[in-house]
């Protein structure tokens, strides 16, 4: 038995041998998204999340769907350089913004320093959370560079962040790794942070 993408997204798959109820045609909207420097012109229902637009309509499956409720961080992408959960926002809301996914960071023959560091430090086992971890870490290092505080920051009046391991852990708490590769993830991020600082 096969299902259309529309059926999957609506969650109206047949259950227990019953045929799916006829859904009213909710209508499609023209939606233009700029992703990794490319423009995509799509026809989407308003209820399609940014995550589903990336994966199911554009074919950028690097971004992962974990919990689909903002709890795991696997779907983290950058919108105008800031990390967000792509599962909790509608694609149509992001016209005119610059979206960056893991595919926009590096390629197998030209890895982003964070991707290389995750390999070097065993920052993953199954790899499912990794694209979200790396997009999150990239934005996190930018936040640190601009002096953003976290709950682990003791002096809020100081604009400079001392990126301790405690700081890295607090700042990465929106990305869950069910394999428990946290030690390697912290090592990877610290490594890239120190590389950048040394430059």
């Amino acid at each position, binding site marked *: 038995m096969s299902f259309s993408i529309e059926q999957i997204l*609506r969650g109206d798959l047949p259950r227990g041998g019953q045929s799916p109820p006829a859904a009213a045609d909710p209508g499609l909207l023209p939606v233009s998204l700029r992703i990794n420097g490319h423009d995509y012109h799509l026809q989407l229902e308003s209820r399609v999340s940014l995550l589903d637009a990336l994966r199911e309509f554009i074919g950028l499956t690097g971004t992962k769907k974990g919990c689909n409720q903002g709890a795991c961080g696997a779907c983290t992408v950058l919108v105008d350089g800031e990390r967000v959960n792509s599962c909790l926002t509608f694609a149509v*809301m992001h016209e005119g913004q610059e979206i960056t996914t893991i595919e926009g960071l590096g390629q197998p023959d030209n890895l982003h320093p964070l991707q290389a560091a995750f390999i070097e430090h065993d920052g993953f086992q199954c790899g499912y959370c990794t694209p979200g971890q790396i997009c999150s870490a990239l934005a996190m290092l930018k936040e640190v560079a601009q002096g953003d505080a976290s709950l682990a920051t003791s002096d809020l009046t100081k604009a400079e962040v001392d990126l301790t391991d405690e700081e890295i852990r607090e700042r990465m*708490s929106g990305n869950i790794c069910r394999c428990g590769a946290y030690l390697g993830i912290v090592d990877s991020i610290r490594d890239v942070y120190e590389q950048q600082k040394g430059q």
Partner: protein
Amino acid sequence: MRAFTYTRAADTSAALGAAIQNPEAKFIGGGTNLVDLMREEVERPNEVIDINRLPLSQIEELPDGGLRLGALARNSHTANHLLVRQRYPVLTQAILSAASPQLRNLATNAGNLLQRTRCYYFYDITAPCNKRQPGSGCAAIGGFNRIHAILGTSEQCIATHPSDMAVALAALDATVQVQSANGQHSIPIEAFHRLPGDTPEQDTNLGHDELITAIDLPATPFATSSLYLKVRDRPSFAFALVSVAAVLKVADSQIKNVRLALGGVAHKPWRAHAAEEILTGAQPTAEIFRRAAEAELQAAIGYEHNAFKIELAKRTIVRALTTLTERHLA
């Protein structure tokens, strides 16, 4: 998720106009709570009005030395605004203790106030819930109620308001700026959220055809001595079991100014007036802190799984006040 009409509002009057025309419509800001609730079919708007293009993202100083936080300023930007960090550290800490960095980047200040309870029975559309479906009953009162309220509850609802930011705003005497077709008015933060009473379906006193434009913080010089202390099941990315926003000024061994608000204990941020009254003018000692905490929690009611919150709230108040007092002495 049900299908809906997407309306992108170009300005505030277009947004209000769309809401007035359709009583079933919902504004969307960050969407971090609304999208989730729509997916669970707890919220079923037939129209979503996107207000993200409205020019309400500024954070600016007010003539009286206060600060105006735009309704659409993101939680992350608000927490890290230099003037917020310097003048209202309790607010920065409260925001940074909530959710995750990704969620704070999406979440707006107004949306934070309007987020709904995380009561599991409210989320479970197969369970009775007076908040979701008035008159259907409350599954939490006789159910698993570890995260639920101990103050200001009713026989209809024991849900808590989940916001950390709003608890800090309660301690800072913030006011919510609201635009309606009739003009602009403001609502003190304490009058913004409601206790459940017989109408738990109403979280706030904001009308359907009203839009939050900003949250104002009054000039509060002593708020530089402030703290948000959040107790939860894990040290990051979890809702509060109990939290305390505390602002304290001690001079000449006397408490000159004190503000206390509790989170995780009620249907709204709980401003601790009884405790403040006992503390004001007193010497800052462990005994008086405990007495103030006892007074504030005197009317608390524990349910099967959350009675621990009563003692926890008292101890959290004492620890917040002790920490701030020690900073004064240091």
